[in-house]
């Protein structure tokens, strides 16, 4: 739970200056893409993520079974031709559940990270742009949110809001926006004094227009990096909550609740734990690789 937050703030500070354009023939994003392509590990990460997203989306075409279809005659079956990854204690096909669980886990990860990024950008943007007392208030709120031990609160919140995907997303987002807020605030403090902000004002632009059209786009690169790392963190958090039994509720499969389910049979059918564990591991690792690659690609100080 902690790496969800620390990862977002600490690791991406390096990219906070990233929105400066390069001088040359190509645009900023073209240069970033050219650099990103050279980052092998990030390419591997991105490929794994795309693969998992594809298998999640096309799950119905990849398996003959339904995720809640049980076969009481074939419980805890070893991997075989008809059940490539075996079955669990109720006779669910594990491969099928893994695919459908990917839908839930990735959805939770992406939406939680997106919500957190939007919220963080909003809070940080307003805070840094207006400064003074509003900045003080918003940054103290951020400090408070950083200081609350997330896990116990998540558990309590998840009990009341949990179970549904939406509930989990909300609960996770609430504890994931602060790193982004601080990042964006820092950038805003620099950006709001830039000449082009004054020039936009002199053309008759309103505060909102200057903030969201002129300044925020200049601060997007670090937000993107932070957001990517947050996706991995959110998937990990969802798995943690589901493992504790307060996340996504069965029969809806998530990698977390599949793990929880498997713990009773760890000595008899260990593969039940290995598959979802491996999926979580690979996905989170891939997001971290991707984030790393994005940071390097978007950081103008690292010339390639």
């Amino acid at each position, binding site marked *: 739970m902690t790496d969800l937050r620390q990862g977002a703030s600490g690791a991406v500070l390096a990219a906070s200056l990233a*929105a*400066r*354009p*390069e*001088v*040359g*023939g190509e*645009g*900023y994003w073209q240069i970033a893409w050219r650099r990103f392509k050279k980052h092998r590990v990030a390419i591997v990460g991105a490929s794994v993520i795309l693969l998992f997203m594809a298998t999640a989306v096309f799950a119905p075409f990849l398996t003959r079974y339904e995720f809640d279809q049980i076969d009481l005659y074939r419980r805890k079956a070893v991997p075989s031709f008809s059940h490539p990854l075996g079955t669990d204690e109720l006779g669910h096909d594990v491969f099928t559940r893994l695919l459908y669980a990917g839908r839930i886990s990735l959805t939770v990860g992406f939406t939680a990270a997106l919500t957190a990024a939007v919220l963080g950008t909003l809070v940080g943007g307003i805070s840094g742009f207006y400064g003074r007392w509003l900045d003080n208030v918003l940054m103290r709120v951020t400090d408070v949110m950083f200081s609350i031990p997330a896990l116990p609160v998540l558990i309590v919140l998840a009990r009341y809001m949990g179970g549904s995907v939406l509930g989990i997303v909300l609960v996770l987002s609430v504890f994931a926006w602060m790193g982004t807020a601080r990042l964006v605030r820092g950038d805003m403090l620099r950006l709001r004094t*830039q*000449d*082009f902000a*004054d*020039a*936009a*004002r*002199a*053309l*008759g*632009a*309103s505060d909102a227009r200057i903030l969201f*059209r*002129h300044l925020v*786009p*200049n601060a997007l690169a670090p937000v993107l990096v932070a957001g990517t790392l947050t996706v991995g963190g959110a998937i990990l958090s969802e798995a943690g909550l589901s493992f504790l039994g307060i996340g996504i509720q069965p029969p809806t499969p998530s990698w977390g609740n599949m793990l929880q389910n498997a713990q009773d049979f760890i000595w008899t059918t260990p593969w039940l734990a290995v598959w979802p564990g491996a999926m979580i591991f690979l996905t989170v690792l891939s997001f971290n690789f991707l984030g790393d690659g994005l940071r390097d690609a978007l950081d103008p100080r690292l010339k390639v």
Partner: protein
Amino acid sequence: MAEVLLSVRNLKTYFYTDEGVVKAVDGLSYELRKGETLGIVGESGSGKSVHALSIMRLIPQPPGKIVEGQILFNGTDLLKLSEEEMRRIRGNRIAMIFQEPMTSLNPVLTIGEQIAEAIMLHQGLGKRDAWDRAAEMLEKVQIPLARQRVRDYPHQFSGGMRQRVMIAMALSCNPSILIADEPTTALDVTIQAQILELITELQRELNMAMILITHNLGVVAETCDDVVVMYAGRPVERATVDATFTDPKHPYTWGLLHSVPKLYERKERLIPIEGQPPSLIDLPPGCSFAPRCPFAMEICVKADPPEYPVGANHAARCFLHSEYATEDEKRAAAAAGLAAAAYGPR
């Protein structure tokens, strides 16, 4: 004479800092007529730019505050308008060009988007029409291949071209006043001349009035109709451009004229104005130029001189033109004025 478009009356803009009150603009008055160019001249820190930002109501507040005065634009006091009414004037009726073309454009938006923004904001045009007009403006400021270049980003433009883009942005809504705050200072000399020519050409074409803020007296001599010389936040001399260069009346103006280098004359060295401009926090009680003034009299360190009329449309804040000066002092001053005029860029 054309009608008065902008009338600044006793404008005072102060900044309230921890060290004290900085009187950046302290009692500035002038009138700007339709189609006319007014030059505001002075060294760094004389309040030139702050006065421009005051007209646009862009003074960061706090610490800044316009504490007194009126800025009458077509008869309405801009200082009394609401922020929203003011937004409709900025970029639409009064536009501004800044000193730094390298940083005044947003690096993440295309040139076209940035020019079209003002047009959509003020003219109520749709995206397509605004974009067309943006391309037209880019052609007007003589950017080659304008129709294609609207899609480019600022980093693909040189400094001079960026200033052209800034001009296109500023003029896109046909403002009646253009405030150009040292528009050529950041550019190299050959580009300076081109940009200046472009601005004056477009000014004539659009029949705009212009406030040209500069410390380049050569530029003033070439482009302006009237001149206000500022020192330490105050207008020390107001005159037509001819009078400024042929019959200057304030010792500070003389000093400025003496510091202009000349290309075709062998001058051993320039005559600088001795000393430093005063801190705007605690100005001396008398004339703020007195400590540096070679003609300073007893009265000058005691009282702040009011504006004395010294000719038609010509006024100077200097006791040399008052009854406090003896006939000898007046004669010496007249001689110094003529000497300075002979030195100036005209």
